[in-house]
């Protein structure tokens, strides 16, 4: 930054570290929450989260491979190498899920087979991550674990730009499918009777989810629970209309992740708690409290 030459140290910390980190939080939170909304609507299943089609586990595996191999081959570690490895991992694992879930007879992939294939591939890549952290030496093994719990400490204006563009474009695209996703709530066949082309809808929505989640995860690591909890909180507040859910989960997801990041930096000061741990510790009690309090059931 050229303007930063005249700044005090505090100003520079704010401009170059804190501000991009806060904005990155907004975009990552929005991506994860909207991804959760989309997949829950698509799978017609409230316990689904955006990583279910293999995206975040693939990203984790890519990152773990990067850490493990980087230590072995001592290749240069530029700013973009880790996100790139994670993104590639996400793309490979998600494509694998899509490919394997196709029925050999009809070429179609049902929602159920997609879900089950996702679970299987997730397990495979997670054990890959486990294996890599098992054989890795200490600093690398710690990096793998740390990355798997998520961290925003690597935020820069460049990462804000990339995640920001992918999030904004994907959320706007997702809004176009809100009505069709609503129709899907009463069933795949019924949605077809209401004029929805299920096959096209499925690929488009999955595509949006994968891009959004893969890009976000590539920069910050695996952050769980945001994608699961945000759509639920909104449904408890005000019904299941997907237009409402997509817009508001982008806002609420961002806010929630900001708060979680704040906590992750404050709780163990000066050390930093991985944000994935914070989202779970804070998210779970709120979630269970709301489930018990409101008549929210399926």
């Amino acid at each position, binding site marked *: 930054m050229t303007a930063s030459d005249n700044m005090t140290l505090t100003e520079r910390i704010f401009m170059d570290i804190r501000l991009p980190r806060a904005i990155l939080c907004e975009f990552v939170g929005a991506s994860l929450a909207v991804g959760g909304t989309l997949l*829950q609507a698509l799978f*017609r*299943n*409230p316990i689904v989260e955006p990583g279910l089609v293999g995206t975040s586990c693939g990203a984790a595996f890519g990152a773990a491979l990067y850490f493990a191999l980087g230590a072995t081959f001592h290749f240069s570690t530029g700013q973009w190498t880790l996100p790139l490895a994670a993104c590639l991992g996400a793309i490979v694992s998600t494509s694998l899920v899509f490919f394997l879930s196709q029925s050999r007879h009809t070429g179609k992939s049902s929602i159920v087979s997609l879900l089950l294939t996702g679970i299987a591939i997730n397990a495979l890549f997670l054990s890959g991550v486990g294996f890599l952290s098992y054989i890795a030496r200490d600093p690398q093994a710690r990096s793998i674990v740390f990355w798997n719990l998520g961290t925003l400490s690597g935020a820069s204006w460049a990462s804000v730009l990339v995640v920001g563009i992918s999030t904004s474009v994907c959320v706007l695209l997702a809004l176009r499918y809100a*009505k069709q996703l*609503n*129709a899907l*709530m*009463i*069933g795949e*066949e*019924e949605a*077809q*009777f*209401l*004029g*929805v*082309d299920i096959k096209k809808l499925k690929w488009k929505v999955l595509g949006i989810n994968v891009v959004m989640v893969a890009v976000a995860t590539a920069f910050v690591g695996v952050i769980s629970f945001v994608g699961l909890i945000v759509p639920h909180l909104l*449904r408890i507040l005000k*019904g*299941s*209309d997907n*237009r409402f859910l997509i817009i508001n989960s982008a806002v609420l997801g961002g806010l929630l992740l900001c708060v979680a990041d704040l906590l992750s930096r404050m709780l163990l000061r000066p050390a930093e708690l991985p944000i994935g741990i914070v989202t779970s510790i804070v998210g779970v009690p709120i979630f269970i409290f709301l489930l018990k309090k409101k008549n*929210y*059931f*399926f």
Partner: protein
Amino acid sequence: MIETQHLYYKIGSKLILEDISVKFLPGKLNLIIGPNGAGKSTLVKLICQQSKPSKGTILFENKNLQSLSTMELSKYRAVLSQNIELAFPLKVSEVVMMGRYPHFSSKPTEKDLKACEEAMRFFDVLDMANRDYLTLSGGEKQRVHFARVAAQIWVPIENGCRYLILDEPLTFLDVHYQFHFMHKLLELLQQKDVVIIGVVHDLNLAAKFANEIVLLNHGKLLAHGSPEEVLTPEFIRTAYRLEPIIHQTNGQTFLFFE
């Protein structure tokens, strides 16, 4: 009008439907009956484009069903299938509004809101418009879906019929609402561009309300015509393997079984 011409449907080498040629006319209540495994649901599936016939054609007016897109059909054809489960909590009015989805792009228009309200009043669910669908009883849910499919085809379209296809719509309903629903169907049929096809199990309801009955047995068309023509001892015996007692009072037919 819907017409099926020499319709065949095979799964593997097993023939599920064999040479079915029937016409379903507008303004008439067309009911499909038959024993379990006769092919009733399969016939409905073919008519709804859920499966493709192995042989034969289905015509909507004079257009081949295969040439019609899902989106186009949804503007004038509503289908009520069995066992609809809602994945998330939703207000009754929102479920009914789904019926209007094919007719607007992002926000419902005046016309859509009006169609929904009228359809809800018609099927006696207007007073639960703001309730959560998931808290309703089985019968209430079914009536909400009646309102939804009615809303879908509530407004007449230019130069063409509207179609309502019902797969076992009476499950979950008590006798009162079974009769209520059948009367409502007859009321809808006073609009002469409406074609209704329904699958039912209750032969007495078919006898009382149907204008045309299609009786299927082992995938074949056993009989087709008015209730008097179809509900004869011979046909009933062949299809259901039971000895019927047919009782006529004041021009109404009642069936009992020994």
